[in-house]
């Protein structure tokens, strides 16, 4: 079987010379400078760097929430940006092709676990009953029994599992995660990484994870370092970093 980074695998995320700046003249800030990145199906890629280096901007650009200033981008094989966004229904693209996992789970506080997941599917057009059934199945898949619990009643680890279930509910080919293990202890952080790896392999999804958490660096197929809006280095981690 070929490795996740094998060129034979489908590229899900392709970025070339992507730049993004905010402001003009003296107030201009270059958040991304000539970023080139490819993440393939089944690959779990880590993205690290100091605060303000452009990691979240890069996630926003790939998530079509922020429009780049220049460059070229293709998502799931479809050209999306070439000096301008090429399609108008970016919302639909986000809903069906991209799954998001946030640092603080960002579950809707007024929906219970099942409803949080079902809502994403209903927004994509699935019927109410079918969405609820699939949401329950996903929770069972993640060993979650508290199907009717509200986010405030869930531990950090459980809430993050619900958030991951929501992210993959519409079977997206691209999963973007913004520091998904930040609020979790080491054991739960490894649990989240297990889930992301499983999803990447089983759903042929490209997973891009922004993280500062060194304890999970060894879990990535590739680890990309950013600095001042540029991709500075890329490595294939092999061993766990010893705990400090």
């Amino acid at each position: 079987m070929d490795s996740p980074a094998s060129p034979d695998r489908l590229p899900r995320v392709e970025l070339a010379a992507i730049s993004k700046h905010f402001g003009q003249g003296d107030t201009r800030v270059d958040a991304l400078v000539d970023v080139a990145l490819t993440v393939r199906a089944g690959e779990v890629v880590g993205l690290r760097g100091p605060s303000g280096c452009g990691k979240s901007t890069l996630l926003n650009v790939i998530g079509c929430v922020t429009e780049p200033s220049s460059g070229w981008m293709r998502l799931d094989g479809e050209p999306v940006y070439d000096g301008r966004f090429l399609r108008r229904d970016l919302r639909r693209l986000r809903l069906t092709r991209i799954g998001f996992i946030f640092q603080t789970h960002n579950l809707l506080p007024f929906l219970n676990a099942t409803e949080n997941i079902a809502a994403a599917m209903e927004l994509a057009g699935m019927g109410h009953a079918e969405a609820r059934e699939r949401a329950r199945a996903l929770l069972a898949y993640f060993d979650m029994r508290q199907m009717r619990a509200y986010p405030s009643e869930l531990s950090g680890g459980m809430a993050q599992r619900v958030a991951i279930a929501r992210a993959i509910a519409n079977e997206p080919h691209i999963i973007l995660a913004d520091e998904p293990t930040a609020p979790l202890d080491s054991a739960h952080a490894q649990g989240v990484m297990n889930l992301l790896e499983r999803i990447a392999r089983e759903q042929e999804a490209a997973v891009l994870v922004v993280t500062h958490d060194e304890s999970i660096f060894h879990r990535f197929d590739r680890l990309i370092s950013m600095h001042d809006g540029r991709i500075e280095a890329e490595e294939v981690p092999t061993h766990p970093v010893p705990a400090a």
Partner: protein
Amino acid sequence: MNLALRDVRRNKLRFALTTLGIGMLIGVVIAMAGIYEGALTDALRLPRALDADLWVVQPRTFGPFAEPSRIPRDTRELIRRMPGVAAAGAVTFQTVQATAGRRPVRLFLEGYEIGRPGGPANLIAGHGLTESHYQIIADASSGLKVGETVPLGPYRDPFEVVGLTHGMVNSGGDPMAWVTLLDAQALQFAVPPALERREQASGRNRPTTTDINAVLVRLSPRAAPAAVAANIARWKHLAAVPEVEEERYLTAFVIQKMQAQLGMFMGILVAVSAVIITLIIYTLTMDKLRSIATLKFIGAPDRVIVAMIVQQALALGLSGFAIGLALIEKVKGGFPRRVQIEPRDLLVILAMIVVVCLAGSVLGVRAAIKVNPAEALAGG
């Protein structure tokens, strides 16, 4: 999935308390409309109950309710003999302040001739006047009971309550009462003995006690009201006003100010409600900004978010309306004046609430639309 409903379900207590507050405010608006309708009904109830086709009054007045009208008592005999007139009755109106037991009682007193138009209709207790003097029929809202005596006039003559009516008050809300015309005239013009002696000593003429305020006319079935009225108006000291015109005087002149006052008050209340509903919706939306950013980030269309805010605003307004209505229905009996809730007014208030809620959600919707989905992400 209805997100607005889910949000309400999750925050039941907050929603219930907010709705209760809005409901009380809307209840006051409903009460205002009810008080106006009640005043209108009260004002029209007396002339309608008297069931006259024509009111003969002093010319160039809007009497006898809108302004004083004084005509000679023999007018009734003149009118009765006219072609087309089936019956005529002389009446007087005055407000009296009395004491029943130790309780102050204010009455709008009508003097009428027994057996002629002008008497009370539909007694709920007792019987009509049977004696020429010292009997009185009162509305039950006065608190008087059959058999009780009420001292009236400068000599504090005891009037025995012989009958009761229900729901008969004047435009000012004072309970109606009926005595014989003779008693009413005596009450209107009698003065205390000392004053009478002084008047005689000064050589002044005492005002005649035979004047009346109006003559109520019932026409024969085939008589034309306009023709009879024109005939009566040939006497220069008389004017004949059709029943509908008398009702118009009441609504246009007597309770017009009350209508304007209540209208102004309702306008202020609606404006206050609009500000409060707007603030509540805006605050509820601001509390959900992160959720809204998340919804946008994962791909929810704006219409889902707008629907959530607008539906919540409408839920607040409509629940508040239901609570306000229930509240007023419950307590309206305790109001000193009639509160009459009309479906037409409720529809208007409901429409106003819907408009206020829709307008009130504009600020919240604007804030939600402006939320950048990127705000769902933390860090840099």
